[in-house]
C-alpha cells in the first residue's frame, strides 16, 4: 500500500491504496446503499463495488439524492 491521489467529486484526494470502491466508501464513512458511484466516467452497479479497484489518477464521483423539484 502506498498513497494514491485520485480526483474525488472534482477535487484531489489522497488515500492509501490501491483500494476497492467498497473500501473507499468505508474510509469516507459513506453508507454504500445510499449512494451511486461513477468510476472514470462509468457508472457502477452496486454489486461491483467490492471488485472495482481505484488507482492513481482515477476519477471518482459519489452522489446521493437531495431535495429537488
Amino acid at each position, binding site marked *: 500500500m502506498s498513497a494514491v491521489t485520485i480526483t474525488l467529486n472534482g477535487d484531489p484526494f489522497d488515500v492509501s491504496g490501491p483500494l476497492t470502491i467498497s473500501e473507499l466508501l468505508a474510509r469516507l*464513512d459513506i453508507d454504500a446503499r445510499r*449512494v*451511486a458511484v461513477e468510476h472514470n466516467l462509468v*457508472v457502477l452497479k452496486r454489486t461491483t463495488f467490492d471488485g472495482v479497484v481505484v488507482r492513481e489518477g482515477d476519477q471518482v464521483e459519489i*452522489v446521493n439524492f*437531495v431535495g429537488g423539484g
Partner: protein
Amino acid sequence: MDSFTIAGKTFASRLIIGTGKYPSHAVMVRAHEASGADMVTVAVRRVNLVRGTKEESLLDYIDTSKYFLLPNTAGCYTVDDAVRTARLGREAGLSNWVKLEVIGDERTLFPDNEALVEATRVLVREGFVVLPYTSDDPVVCRKLEDAGAAAVMPLGAPIGSGLGIQNPNNIRIIREFSRVPVIVDAGVGTASDAAFAMELGADGVLMNTAIAGAQDPPAMAEAMKHAVLAGRLAYLAGRIPRKLYATASSPLEGLVGR
C-alpha cells in the same frame, strides 16, 4: 377517479411533488402526506465528503414503499451531463425512470430543447423511462414523443416563478397532439393554477416551490390535492361554452305580476 398511467405504471394521484426547498424535513413529510401524491421528485448531487451519509439523509424522510422516486437531472446544461446524472440516479434509486432536464439558460431555466430531444433519444435507447421537462411547444413535444418519451412535461411558466399557466392554448394543443401523458411541470403558484392546468386537459401536474415555498406547506399541499381533483373532474365533465350575454337560469314564464 379515472386512473393515471405512465409507461404501464398506474398512480393514485395526478399530482407529482418535489422534495426541495422545504423549511425542514418534518414539514416536507407532512406536506407529502397532505398532498396525496404517490410520486416525488429528487435531485442527484455529490455527497458531502465532510459529513458523509451517516448524518440524516433525504431518504430517511421518504417512505419508498409509499412514494415512487423520480430522480431529476436538474442543473444539467449538456446532453452528456444529463445522461451521466440520469445513469447515477438510476443506480442510487430504485427504478429506471428519470425526469429529464437539460437547461438552456440560467436566468429563465428554459430548456435547451435540441439537447433535450437528443438526451431523450440516448436514454430511451438505454432503457430509461424518460419524462422530459420541456417548453410549452407542441412541435417539440411531438419530437420528444417520437424520440420515445413516456410522457411530455411542458412548463406552465418558468421554474419557481409561480406565474401560473402562461400559454393555456399551447397546453391544450399539446394535449390534443400527444399520445403520451401530458404533465404540466413548473410555474404553478397557487391552487387555481393547478386546477386550470387540469381543466385544460393535462393528465397531471408537477410542482415543488408552490408547496415548499408556501407559508404553510402542508396546507398548500392539501389545497393542491383538491385543485388537481377538481380540475380533472371539470375537464371530464365538459364545461359549458362561453357566451357574451346572459341566459336566465330560472323560468321566464309564471312570473308574479305579469
